[in-house]
């Protein structure tokens, strides 16, 4: 049983419209964007960024820039200066833009990428990983041997803004996700000064099973309910 409360619960998480939310994104921001392929991408928030902001020179931290997504629209509008992720090969336009010097790309193995985000959001500046040791992706990076095995020192990632997608939020700002749409979203929520979440549904406090909450509201700044695009 919960104890009786004198006041209704209120957290500092704001519940805003997409317009109000995206206004808070600074110019030339470094921005984490959730999703793997086209799954779990915050399409509604990105649509807002495309339609209703002048944001450009963005540095995007996202596993891919997938063709069917609004992230690709943002790229096609030349508003992305640099992309950090693990797999851009399937988007031929991105490959072409890279060759022509229109976009910078920083490539990380996907496990290094995800851990760099998780630890960035956890207050750790760098970490050693066995992944990429002895390969091209470790060139220029410090290495160190522990117990006879070589590890690469990788810096963690932290951004101005995270745009993520969750399934449901409660009115405190706690989040749950749906199936493999979870992917990078919970760790990205941790790793930004301003975390904006789009959800399909906002429920009353107490309706989400506390044992099932994946992202506690401490990592969330703004929740936006998705309306029909």
């Amino acid at each position, binding site marked *: 049983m919960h104890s009786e409360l004198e006041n209704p619960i209120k957290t500092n998480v704001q519940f805003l419209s997409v317009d109000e939310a995206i206004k808070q994104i600074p110019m030339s921001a470094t921005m984490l964007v959730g999703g*793997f392929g086209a799954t779990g991408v915050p399409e509604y928030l990105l649509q807002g960024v495309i339609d209703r902001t002048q944001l450009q020179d963005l540095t995007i931290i996202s596993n891919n820039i997938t063709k069917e997504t609004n992230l690709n629209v943002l790229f096609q509008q030349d508003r992305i200066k640099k992309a950090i992720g693990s797999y851009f090969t399937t988007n031929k336009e991105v490959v072409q833009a890279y060759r022509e010097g229109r976009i910078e790309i920083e490539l990380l193995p996907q496990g290094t990428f995800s851990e760099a985000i998780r630890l960035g959001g956890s207050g750790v500046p760098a970490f050693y990983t066995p992944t990429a040791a002895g390969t091209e992706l470790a060139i220029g990076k410090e290495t160190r041997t522990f117990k006879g095995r070589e590890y690469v020192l990788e810096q963690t990632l932290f951004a101005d803004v995270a745009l993520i997608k969750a399934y449901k939020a409660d009115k405190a700002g706690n989040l749950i996700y749906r199936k493999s749409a979870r992917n990078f979203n919970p760790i990205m929520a941790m790793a930004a000064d301003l975390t904006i979440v789009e959800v399909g549904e906002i429920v009353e406090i107490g309706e989400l099973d506390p044992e099932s909450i*994946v992202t506690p509201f401490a990592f969330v700044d703004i929740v936006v309910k998705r309306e029909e695009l």
Partner: protein
Amino acid sequence: MEKSMKEYIAWRCAQELTSGIVNLGIGIPTLVADYLPQGLVTLHSENGILGVGPDPSPDQIDPDLVNAGKAPVTVLPHVSYFDSSISFGMMRGGHIDTTVIGALQVSEQGDISSWAIPGKDVLGVGGAMDLVVGAKRVIAAMTHLNQKGEPKILRECTFPLTAKKRVDTIITEYAVFKFRDQQLWLVEMSDEITMDQLKKITPAYYEIASDFKTFNRKELINQR
């Protein structure tokens, strides 16, 4: 390459997989799922699924449920979902029993190249490095020669490496090699070629294992 050869490679890989948690890479490894013992092997997908099921029927497709190749999947009753850092922790931390991965080249040291070709822009690595570094067992599933007819099992890899000294087993349409005591051993060879012919298309140094045998691919395919 004829379809039955790829199917044979996939089937032969599946013979190595009798239990545990398995991650299948893109390409030929994807076909391995068709031949796995149902219920005994659990499939992991690096985008955060443990317990991947068969392909969905059209009415089962869910945009929130895709595999690492971004293709729609179903799930089994013991499924769990988790974020990407947990998923890669599972891989890098040695909690995946076997990965079957495609390869461009494998060296006699067990080095593997699977993600980049020299002279081409390197814009995608995905999860291959973490998988190969972390899985307890790495099976390279590949055609014996590349599309230009050049050997892929070499003394040294000439393409950018995915990882060093991580491959345990190589399975091609012509042969099965295993690394034992840091040395490459030939354990199976197709009866359609001779030892000399195999040597010509396999520059890596290898010995013939005491349990060596030949196989007839067509017979094996028909038997299954």
